[in-house]
């Protein structure tokens, strides 16, 4: 109990930190792996906590009721629960997944059918023939048909979704839909499977009740049906006894958003919350110091959620970073290994020298990158005419992890004579910089894996797209763009991966266009009695809770 008190007091200190706009730091742990069947295939690790401080031999917790309560220690950003396809962020996704299903599921790089049970692709990769599962009904009793799927995709397209580009859709019959693409896209199904665009809502509910009603009353096909939504705090789902698939095995699922990390920790330690998404080092530390390791199982994704970068304004002729030698010196001056292993204690983060991760088909083994070498950095700065250093500004968001790694970077750069001034910005102000231009400064920000590293880089850093963002201030060579164009036009993901690797070799080793800091993986914490949540299979900290159950 003393440990619980300590955890809570620490959590209170963290709350103070968060109220003051800065986060706490942490101490670390090691992990042992015990992969489950689906884990290995899915590219995630389930680890039983080995607490470096002290392994607690407490009781194995039991569920308090037959309702699973999941949560996240982050303020909610969901502005709607229904018709989510066009909304820009996917924070609502986990909250609606008990009741709303996707056309496809994504399982560690492999697209699997879900509401679409069979499909074929034409040789030129432009036409997809989908067969829609026949026995599926929405919670309002209406039938899932090809017409409904078409309407959902059209709704996304009509409301500004650009990640999928469809020329036309033809309903063949009730269960067959032909989709013709506008342009070749080897990531079409991946994009549907990992984003909000493939979620399916009841057309009948829309026709009957209108759009605004549907925002607040998500009617899907999932194992749980919508009960209530208290905006910003929780959404409640109850068992759908007429579910077409296996399940439900629980009476309900409640998904909570906690603005206070301390409250989330207390709720988890108390057993009121049994699954906690996107846990960070603070939560990990506090929970593991209070609970038996079996009550703090962790699912860490093998594919990162994000990769953190420093974006340099190489395209600005007035910037020191216009010179590739300065960009390279910058990279050599920073010890990313120490940042990952000492500062973040290796929790959830891993070093990588490119916008990918070891084991991915997009990972280029030939990329050398920039190992920490301050002497070489000084030499390069001398050659570039900056032997006496220079002063520059980095723009970053407030809060963790920026308040941890940016000061470390400042210290590393000071060693080679670069005086880095930090401009901390709140989210909206930072976004404004990102959308306009950051010339005259550098900035640091993560890029997510949606649907994977190629998809993300394609969306932001390829010809035709980069011009629209502040990212246009980054220097990329013609060779890079040419390789990327070829990757975009590839017939298969394997071919796309080859070109992607070449493009990254140009961007990292030749031009040093961007600096890769580290890969940030997701970590979900759960009680061991919670099983079959699909956490192990899902990407980007998602889950597939239709088969979730409590196991003795």
């Amino acid at each position, binding site marked *: *109990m003393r440990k*619980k*008190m300590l955890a*809570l*007091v620490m*959590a*209170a200190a963290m*709350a*103070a930190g968060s*109220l003051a706009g800065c986060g706490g730091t942490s101490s670390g742990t090691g992990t042992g792996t015990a992969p489950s069947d689906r884990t290995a295939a899915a590219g995630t690790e389930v680890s039983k906590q080995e607490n470096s401080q002290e392994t607690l031999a407490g009781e194995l917790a039991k569920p308090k009721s037959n309702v699973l309560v999941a949560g996240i220690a982050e*303020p909610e*950003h969901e*502005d*709607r629960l229904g018709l989510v396809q066009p*909304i*820009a*962020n*996917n924070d609502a996704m986990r909250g609606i997944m008990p009741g709303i299903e996707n056309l496809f599921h994504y399982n560690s790089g492999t697209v699997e059918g879900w509401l679409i049970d069979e499909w074929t692709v034409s040789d030129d990769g432009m036409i997809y023939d989908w067969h829609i599962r026949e026995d599926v009904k929405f919670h309002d009793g209406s039938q899932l048909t090809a017409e409904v799927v078409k309407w959902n995709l059209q709704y996304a397209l009509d409301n*500004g979704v*650009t990640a999928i580009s469809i020329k036309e859709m033809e309903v063949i019959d009730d269960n067959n839909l032909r989709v013709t693409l506008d342009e070749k896209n080897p990531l079409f199904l991946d994009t549907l499977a990992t984003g909000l665009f493939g979620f399916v809502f009841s057309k009948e509910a829309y026709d009957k009740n209108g759009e*605004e009603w549907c*925002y*607040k009353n998500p009617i899907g096909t999932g194992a749980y049906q919508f009960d209530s939504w*208290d*905006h*910003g*705090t*929780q959404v409640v789902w109850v068992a759908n006894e007429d579910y077409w698939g296996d399940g439900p095995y629980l009476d309900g699922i409640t998904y*909570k*958003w*906690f*603005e*206070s990390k*301390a*409250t989330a920790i*207390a*709720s988890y*330690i*108390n057993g*009121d919350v049994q699954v906690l998404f996107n846990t960070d080092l603070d939560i990990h530390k506090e929970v593991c110091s209070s609970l038996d390791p079996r009550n703090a199982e962790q699912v860490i994704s093998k594919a990162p959620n994000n990769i953190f970068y420093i974006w340099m304004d190489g395209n600005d002729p007035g910037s020191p970073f216009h010179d590739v030698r300065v960009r390279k010196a910058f990279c050599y001056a920073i010890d990313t290994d120490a940042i990952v292993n000492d500062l973040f204690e290796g929790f959830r983060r891993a070093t990588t020298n490119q916008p990918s991760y070891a084991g991915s088909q997009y990972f280029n083994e030939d990329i050398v990158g920039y190992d920490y070498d301050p002497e070489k950095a000084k030499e390069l700065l001398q050659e570039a005419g900056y032997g006496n250093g220079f002063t520059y500004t980095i723009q970053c968001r407030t809060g963790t992890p920026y308040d941890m790694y940016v000061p470390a970077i400042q210290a590393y750069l000071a060693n080679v004579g670069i005086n880095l001034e930090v401009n901390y*910005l*709140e*989210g*909206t*102000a*930072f*976004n*404004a*910089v990102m*959308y306009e231009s950051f010339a005259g400064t550098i900035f640091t920000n993560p890029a*997510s894996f*949606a649907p994977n590293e190629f998809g993300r880089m394609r*969306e932001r850093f390829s010809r035709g*797209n980069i011009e*629209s*963002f502040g990212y246009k201030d980054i220097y990329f060579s013609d060779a890079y763009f040419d390789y990327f164009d070829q990757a975009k036009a590839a017939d298969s993901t394997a071919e796309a991966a080859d070109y992607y690797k070449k493009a990254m070799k140009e961007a990292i080793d030749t031009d040093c266009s961007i600096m890769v800091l580290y890969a940030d993986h997701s970590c979900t914490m759960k009680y061991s009695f919670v099983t079959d949540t699909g956490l192990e299979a899902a990407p980007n900290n998602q889950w597939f809770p239709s088969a979730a159950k409590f196991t003795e």
Partner: protein
Amino acid sequence: MAKYITSKVIQAVVVLFIISFATFMLLSYMPGDMAVAMAGDATPAQVAAMRAEMGLDRPVSVQFVDWLSKAVRGDFGYSYYYNDEVSHVILKPLERTMILGVVSLAISFFVGIFLGVIAGMYRGTWMDDLISVIANMGIAAPQFWIGIILIYLLSMQNGYFPIEGYVDPYRDFGEFVRYSVLPVITLSIPSVAAITRQARSAVLETIGQDYVRTARAKGLKKSIIIIKHVLKNAMMPVITLLGLRVRLVFGGSVIVEQIFNINGMGRVMSKAINMQDTNMAQCCVLIIGIVVIISTLMVDILYGVLDPRIRDKKGE
């Protein structure tokens, strides 16, 4: 008194106008806007489309006049973050914050006065020392810390109360009480502490007055002296303080609602400001302004009720 109230209402309208203008301008000139805040991974073209849909591409002055002309007719506009009319969205959170706030103020008033009178009456004794120390601690302790400690002691240790959440009183009154105890205590402790200290000082000041000594000499019972002579006269500064606490209770709701995961007005307001949801933020600020103005007005009226000299002066 009617003339006095009328002049106060006119002042209130001017104050509300200034508050709403200042809030609107501050939100408008903050870097970024709601379209950017909600954009997430959207492309700049999508952001521009969102901006046009929200009317954010118009000059700020036009936006303000548009908002003001609707607001005076009771239309607080549409919240693009909540996808609903502001007046619809705000009702439930406002109700929750008001219920918790009113209960907290009532507790603060009665408990604070009770403890203050005890401390004042028994000045220099162990009771006075104990109450004074506790009151000082209550003032010094940060609210989020109080909340966390209460969660540990009363939820995690003993399971008496839930860690977080809220149940509406008309849905299940018993559960409402169970869920509200910790937030109300957290909200009340600083106010109880402040009122206790104020009441103690006021009682000490009053107790030495000639009319109290006379009452004692007349052989009146101690309880009658306290209620009729001491308390009534000691109430003035306490009521002033209570009026000020209304503002602090509303301000404190932001933290309390965050700790106890309650979707109240404090939380809505903080979200609205973060997301630069101007219509919603304006509405929240106006509500707080109105509550503060009404509470100040009520304090003024109560002065008159408690002290006929003031009433007569105002009535002139």
